[in-house]
């Protein structure tokens, strides 16, 4: 799909990442996110917590590259919402709580979310998470610091990165930079820009010393936008899940309604 306005994006270059996790903490700082109780490590190397969650929108992972039983490298990379240009999550959302903004970020609105989790099921990268410790879990995920971008500031993670392993810019500019790095340093990079065409393209562009698939990213993704398959996706969800989702949805609608009534009453009292 051609975009009328230019898309903004992040270029994640794992050859520059030092695994300091400034991005992970600064994300929590800016978004007032809590922390989880962890023990030892939640993944390879120093990874913690184990997964993205309602309180972790971005997570740095660690991987020891071993060849012939010898350590070749220790690599780090940042995981987060890939921000599809045509996001399946937005197209499956029953209430329009997830939206694709015109210029890029896939954002969410917790006043609308009913907690059905269709978005979660539709995501090829398994990104949308819910606040499981909440009575009424709602969607949570990276929204590319849309609030900051609106104010002319750059996303918190990109700002905090000491080594420009996270670069913020227009998608076209960043693609050019990525292509230039790949062609000028062919020994350093695996020759692929992950996110350029995957699922029709994402705002997060990854370049790396090794294939991203070796670091746990989905393999052989279609280059077709998943949003165009939404109908198929929804119909393929098992009836049990739909049933649960619908029940939660109904619960959420009732709760929302109750909240609305409460708010209304409060206003009346104030009068």
């Amino acid at each position, binding site marked *: 799909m051609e975009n009328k306005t230019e898309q903004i994006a992040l270029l994640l270059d794992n050859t520059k990442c030092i695994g300091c*996790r400034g991005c992970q903490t600064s994300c929590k700082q800016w978004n007032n996110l809590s*922390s989880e109780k*962890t023990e030892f*490590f939640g993944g390879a190397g120093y990874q*913690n917590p184990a997964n993205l969650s309602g309180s972790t929108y971005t997570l740095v992972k660690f991987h020891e590259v071993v060849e012939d039983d010898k350590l070749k*490298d220790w690599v780090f990379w940042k995981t987060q919402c890939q921000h599809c240009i045509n996001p399946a999550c937005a197209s499956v959302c029953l209430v329009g709580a997830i939206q694709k903004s015109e210029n890029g970020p896939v954002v969410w609105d917790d006043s609308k979310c009913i907690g059905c989790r269709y978005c979660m099921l539709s995501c090829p990268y398994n990104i949308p998470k819910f606040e499981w410790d909440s009575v009424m879990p709602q969607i949570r995920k990276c929204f590319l610091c849309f609030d900051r971008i*609106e104010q002319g500031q750059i996303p918190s993670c990109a700002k905090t990165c*000491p080594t420009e392993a996270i670069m913020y810019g227009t998608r076209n500019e960043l693609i050019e*930079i990525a292509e230039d790095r790949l062609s000028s340093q062919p020994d350093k990079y695996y020759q692929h820009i992950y996110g350029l065409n995957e699922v029709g393209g994402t705002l997060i562009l990854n370049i790396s010393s090794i294939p991203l698939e070796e670091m746990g990213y989905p393999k052989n993704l279609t280059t077709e936008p998943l949003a165009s398959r939404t109908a198929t996706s929804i119909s393929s969800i098992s009836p049990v899940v739909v049933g649960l989702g619908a029940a939660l949805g109904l619960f959420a609608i009732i709760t929302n309604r109750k909240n609305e009534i409460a708010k209304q009453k409060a206003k009346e009292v104030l009068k």
Partner: protein
Amino acid sequence: MDRRTFFKFGAITLGTVITTFALSSNTALASNKEFKTSKSKETSTICPFCGVGCGLIVSTKEGNIINIEGDNDNPINEGSLCSKGSALFQVAVNERRLKHVLYRAPGAKEWEKKDWLWAIEKIAKNIKETRDKTFETEKDGKIVNRTQGIAQLGGAAHDNEECYLLSKFARALGINWLEHQARLCHSSTVAALAASFGRGAMTNHFNDLMNSDVIMVMGSNIVEMHPMATKWIMKAKEKGAKIISSDPRFTRTSSIADIYTKFRSGTDIAYVGGMINYAISNDRIQHNYLLNCTNASFIVNEGYFFNNGLFAGYNPEKRKYDKKMWVYETDAKNNIKKDTTLQHPRCVFQLLKKHYERYDVDTVCNITGTPVDDYLKVCDLFTSTYPENKSATWCYAMGATQHTVGTQYIRTYAILQLLLGNIGIAGGGINALRGESNVQGSTDMALLFHILPGYLACPEPDDVDLKTYIEKYTPKSADPKSANWWGNYSKYITSLLKAWWGENAQPDTDGGYAFNYLPKKSGVNDFMSLFENIYKGKTEGLLIWGMNPAVGGPNLNKERKALEKLKWMVVAELWETETAEFWKRPDVDPSAIQTEVFLLPACSSVEKEGSIANSGRWTQWRYAAIHPGDEGWHGDARSDLWIVDALFKAVRKEYNNGGKFPDPILKLNWDYNSGDNIDVDIEPDVHAVASEINGYFIENGVRKGQVPGFAKLTDDGTSACGNWVYCGGYVSWGNTEGDKSAPNYVKNYLGEFSNRYARRIAEKDEPKTMALISEGRAPGMNHNWSWCWPVNRRILYNRASVDSNGEPLNKERWVIRWNPNLNEGKGAFEGDVPDGPWAPSEKYPFIMTEEGVGRIFSPKPNEGPFPEHYEPLETPISVNPFSEQMLNPVVILYHKGDELNKELNAIGLSNEFPIVATTFRLTEHWQGGAMTRNLAWQSELMPNLFVEISKELATEKNISNGDKVSVITARGKVSAFALVTNRFEPVIIKDNGVEKKIHQIGLPWHYGYSGIATGDSANLLTPHVGDGNTNIPEYKTFLCNIEKV
């Protein structure tokens, strides 16, 4: 804060995008809410964690801190932060922060809440009681004027102004058991670098790393410990620089390196000694530099020799050398004899060559366990920087300093860098990386037993008066071309005494200018000796300022036990630390511990104002974001400045009614605009302190204007200066000219600019500077951002970067150059502030050594003029291939005394403990841990103690990743999770000709029993043994065993 410049960087061009940015349909989350930081007040600050000195902006709304993120304008970090810096918000906004004064009565099981006035008065009475009881005015017929019953620790996280007052306070009381974090982290640095170049500081600075061709990281894990340094390393890398990482363990630093080599912990002198040998035998030496800038051509006296691991002059009973055996040969006029052909068998160069011939590649690799091919690659790459247009820097930290031969590790770097001509140049130098935000400043302010502010010697009983002292410590040079800057010693000590005792210090007062008010030290009063002393019950009271020795000290079973013997202890802190609650630590009975404890709630770095010096000596100003009474304020918390001011005033009040030798207290010049009485609502004036540190002129007993620079200080009582190296930093009052809040005594004197620490003009905003950079001047100096000692000089020893005409040796990245048109046609240097203003041919380049050159051969270190390899206290090998001397022959040995003490100071042998262990730190945690293990975000990232072990060792011991294991040494045992990794590999060495596989493991030492993230402290394992010069503990190498639980 300038809003226009605030959000200028960090992104590539975005202009057009931002303006058209909108959601296509309904507005979503982001647009619905008010922007987080809108309508907030902004203050700039500097990160309180490591020594890089990153800037941050604190946003405050209605007295609450609501956001803290990187300061885009700060040229050190340009808005970036690591995970600790990003978590500073949780230091400022945290329910775990101390809110009240807490008191623990002797034997009590819990804290009681108290108010400030009660606590300050009670502590003052304790101080007076102990001081009066233990005060010695004379020892063996000589004046000492000291109390050995009180000790003071801490200060590296404090502002300069606080450190200065802590130093002044302790000395006025007569305390000479005065120590802080610097002893444990970089004391050996100061000993080695001062012995080599004349100053103990990091030679260059962080931004300058971008000017390097080769960056050697050995003895440091720069990427993890100083993440923002990586910003500049990456810039160098983009320009083609190569990075070397040599470390027993493959770290996040190794991940960005072009070459990684492993080696056995504790063999660095062999490793670097071999590099020196490689440089000499392959003639990779900058010959002109060697002749002009080093003592390579100097001839050493005939008595000097080196044989079987020992230098001339060793006394085995005293475990000491007679350093008179290591002097230069001089002529009748006292001039040093030289041989500029470098052929004389006793010239330094030939002695050096001979000394390191023994360090051939095979011998080196057999002992270090480094694969020969890898090692040769390192030798080749590093020494390839010997031409004038190439630069290499050496980055190191605790991996080097914390060994029994720590000082000599660093000496090897100095020798190698002098051979290659890498000192004084852009991208060169020896970058001693400081791990605490102001450990440079706290060291400058002399929170150490052996120095006074500005690296003046702490007097000893033999220094009977000021005249004797000056005579003893002022170095002399017969050579008129040697600037011998320390020749000004008398001005600095006299001005210090004037700053401290003001008009009470007259030429004839007590030893001259009240010289004998200073306590005299006998022997060593360092951190480990202090704990040995406390353990023996010789110390009654301990004052601790923001330090956590119950996690950070070595051999913790002993040191924690020692604390129980204190009569009273005062801790000023943000948190309830392991040290503060040692009396209720696991497995002890509080009722059996009679120590009275005061825990005082202090301010974090964003709640007070003052300056801190980063590792590169850039001294930056921090502002208070919130104030007492604000909604976000932490109860009764007060700054350490307030606490020490209040405490001093309370002690002074006690002495008004008499006591032992009250003069140093009663006559102390102590007035920081907070009144004579203690008032919790009046903060002392930090600017008054800063201006005293800088120094002021005195005319007929009246304070006049600020001293503009230390060249103007005097020794006739007409100037006062709290610390001569900071002279020039605070030349006038306030942040802007004509500040109305300035008191009268400084209002009359206004320089063109005032608080230089607060300057915020980055280099890229200065067209003139940028023009010079386009002419080849090395970028990154940022002279108008903050101020650095000495005299705002960014690269030390920069006179070594030019030839005798003042032409830069490297025209592509010059530091200074002689411009004959400047100075009304008389000529002057331009670029960086030169290391002395003289024309290049007038003076030698190293102005802080009496020889005027860098010392390849240095008679200063205690174990010899050249570094020699000795094994750690606990070694896995049976034979030192270089000599019969296994251990550094001059280290202090504590493992004697009563039975329990013997056990607590036990030494492990390799048959029982075959594995080499080392300790390390993590990006996510900081030092003793209180500052990060109390933060939820950092605790989530690194929740538990773990031990890194190789796959091979894991297989041998049947350990899987994530298993609980015990690590055991002769002194202690810790429980940890096993992190099985490819990043550790055993090293294959040859011991006495026999091949041997040595396993190495490593543990982070941040953990303890307090905070959110808790775990055993790795320092339960480490030994009580230190370096031969500064007694910095040998944390980095010891023997252990490991078992699956």
